[in-house]
């Protein structure tokens, strides 16, 4: 059991973690989610007593880390896969750690087998790939057979087989009654691995709930409706009618409406009764990733901007086998991107239009142009 109470960490004027309180319970995998620079690693370091909190405190099993008796036997941690002396072999690295806690050398060979590094155990870790480094870090965490395990981004650099292995390992460790705390910036990964989620952004707690609750609360279905253009008041009229019928209506940047709480046929009926012509009525499901993005959107520190590449590229033809509409198209419309590393600026949500894009686009070239301009 890890318990943080009012954890705050400031580096000079920058607040890395602010007033963070949470509990990580044994027997489940708890995912620790947040964008890059949101304070995940700082929190992990504070749990391990490496960084001193500016205020607040964090305990493991009721004790601050630094006063734990024989810490390596109780807490295992993977903080940074590259945190090994490159000139030392994997086995010697683990041996030096094992000796600290009085762990026999036989256990070193055991964990090397568990993580699948037995064949390279005597090679210098300098030549290890990132994935091998992660395995070595996981081996170090498992060394003392601890009840509490912390993993900072353990799947970084692993191949699909490795990711699956880590996922199953976490679940197995948790099923043995251990406390497993895993940080990640990948919502999709956490949705598959964790049972409980702690989401932070800019060092503050955004959510602390069961994954199932998180999914049901955040990935609601919605319908996308586009009203025939040229008559703006129709849109207001439809919004009013739909709200009256019990739906929640949100406006999307390109002028479409996002409606939740009403089934598609009902929306069609309401539009018909209100005498509003529709150009689009399509079902959508907000992904978990999207829910996470929405949640952390205001809390992203490092955001990419569009690379204009002005003059560097030849104009590209209209790809994707679509007919040429004759209309001047500034760019080829990109296929739906599931790019979770580079969230768009607030107020622009490429995912909103993504799933139904190809159909809608082919049906209506002019609409495509407007949506391009809106970006």
């Amino acid at each position, binding site marked *: 059991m890890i318990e943080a109470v009012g954890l705050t960490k400031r580096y000079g004027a920058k607040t890395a973690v602010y007033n963070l309180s949470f509990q990580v319970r044994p027997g489940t995998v708890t995912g620790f989610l947040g964008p890059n620079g949101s304070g995940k690693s700082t929190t992990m*370091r504070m749990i*391990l*007593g*490496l*960084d*001193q909190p500016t205020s607040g405190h964090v305990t493991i099993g009721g004790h601050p*880390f*630094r*006063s*734990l*008796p*024989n*810490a*390596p036997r109780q*807490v295992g*941690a993977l*903080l*940074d896969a*590259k*945190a*090994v*002396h*490159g*000139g*030392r*072999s994997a086995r*010697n690295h683990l*041996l*030096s*750690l094992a*000796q*600290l*806690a*009085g762990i026999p050398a036989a256990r070193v060979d055991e964990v090397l087998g568990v993580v699948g590094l037995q064949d390279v155990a005597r090679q210098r870790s300098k030549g290890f790939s990132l994935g091998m480094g992660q395995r070595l870090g996981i081996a*170090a965490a498992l060394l003392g057979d601890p009840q509490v395990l912390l993993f900072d981004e353990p799947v970084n650099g692993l191949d699909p087989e490795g990711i699956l292995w880590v996922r199953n390992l976490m679940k197995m460790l948790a099923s043995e009654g251990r406390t497993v705390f895993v940080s990640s910036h990948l919502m999709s990964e956490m949705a598959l691995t964790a049972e409980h989620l702690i989401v932070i952004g800019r060092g503050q707690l955004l959510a602390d709930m069961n994954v199932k609750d998180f999914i049901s609360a955040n990935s609601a279905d919605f319908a996308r409706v586009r009203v025939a253009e040229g008559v703006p008041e129709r849109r207001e009229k439809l919004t009013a009618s739909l709200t009256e019928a019990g739906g929640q209506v949100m406006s999307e940047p390109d002028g479409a409406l996002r409606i939740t709480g009403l089934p598609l046929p009902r929306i069609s009926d309401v539009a018909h009764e209100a005498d509003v012509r529709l150009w689009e009525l399509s079902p959508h499901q907000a992904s978990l990733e999207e829910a996470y993005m929405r949640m952390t959107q205001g809390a992203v520190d490092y955001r990419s901007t569009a690379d204009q590449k002005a003059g560097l590229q030849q104009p590209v033809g209209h790809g994707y086998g679509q007919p040429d509409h004759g209309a001047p198209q500034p760019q080829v419309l990109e296929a739906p991107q599931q790019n979770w590393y580079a969230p768009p600026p607030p107020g622009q949500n490429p995912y909103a239009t993504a799933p139904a894009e190809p159909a809608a686009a082919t049906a209506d070239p002019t609409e495509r142009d407007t949506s391009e301009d809106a970006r």
Partner: protein
Amino acid sequence: MASVPAVLTSEWTKIRTVSSTVWTLISAFVVTVAMGAALCALMNSQFDDLPPAQRATFDPTFISFSGMVLGQLAMVVFGVLVVGTEYSSGMIRTSLAAVPQRGSFLFSKVAVAGVLALVVGIVTSFVAFFLGQALLGDHRTDIGAEHVLRAVVGGGIYMGLIGIFSMGAATMLRSSMLSLGILMPFFFLVSQILSAVPGAKKVARYFPDQAGSKIMQVVPDAMNSGTAPYGPWGGLGILLAWVAAALLGGYLVLKKRDA
């Protein structure tokens, strides 16, 4: 709480499983012995051409340790790397997560590396002495002569202490590059140059290497090296004070700062 013997064992494993340990210590030995031998041979052949002042204070023991000016630099590298690679690799976080008691961590590391440095220093010192004397011909001295054993053992202790001083400095600076960038020019250039400048001499003789090397002199102010207001043991005491200060500083930095 990780017990001290456990931390010592672990630190010994760490130190013996990286090749930089072997290379830096071997260079410290080879450079000191080889350069000392070369200078002894040179002195032997050129003794009659020496200025009278140098001839009057000729110290065959001290001459055989002339290689330490360079050899100590390898010792500095050893001391810096022992601590610095923990920081440059990020291993320090793993180490401190396993040994939350930072005092035990630092002093176990320094104890293991320090003992190793002292052992290599003593061996180097004795080999340099005997080889040097063999090459000095008629000007040689004997290990049984007055103060000579003190100088030879002292030379070994000096080398070890320079290594330990570097460990303390590297703990304070938390970086191999920074530590080497400061310590190497200091020992190789600044200290040597200032000790030759009349005005700065008075300050320079309290520098760790200037004060500590007095222990290697059998003849006071050997080779016309200038008088000092302290004796050989006083000089070693000054070096010890520097080492203690560096370790204390390192300990405070390690304790206070986030890893």
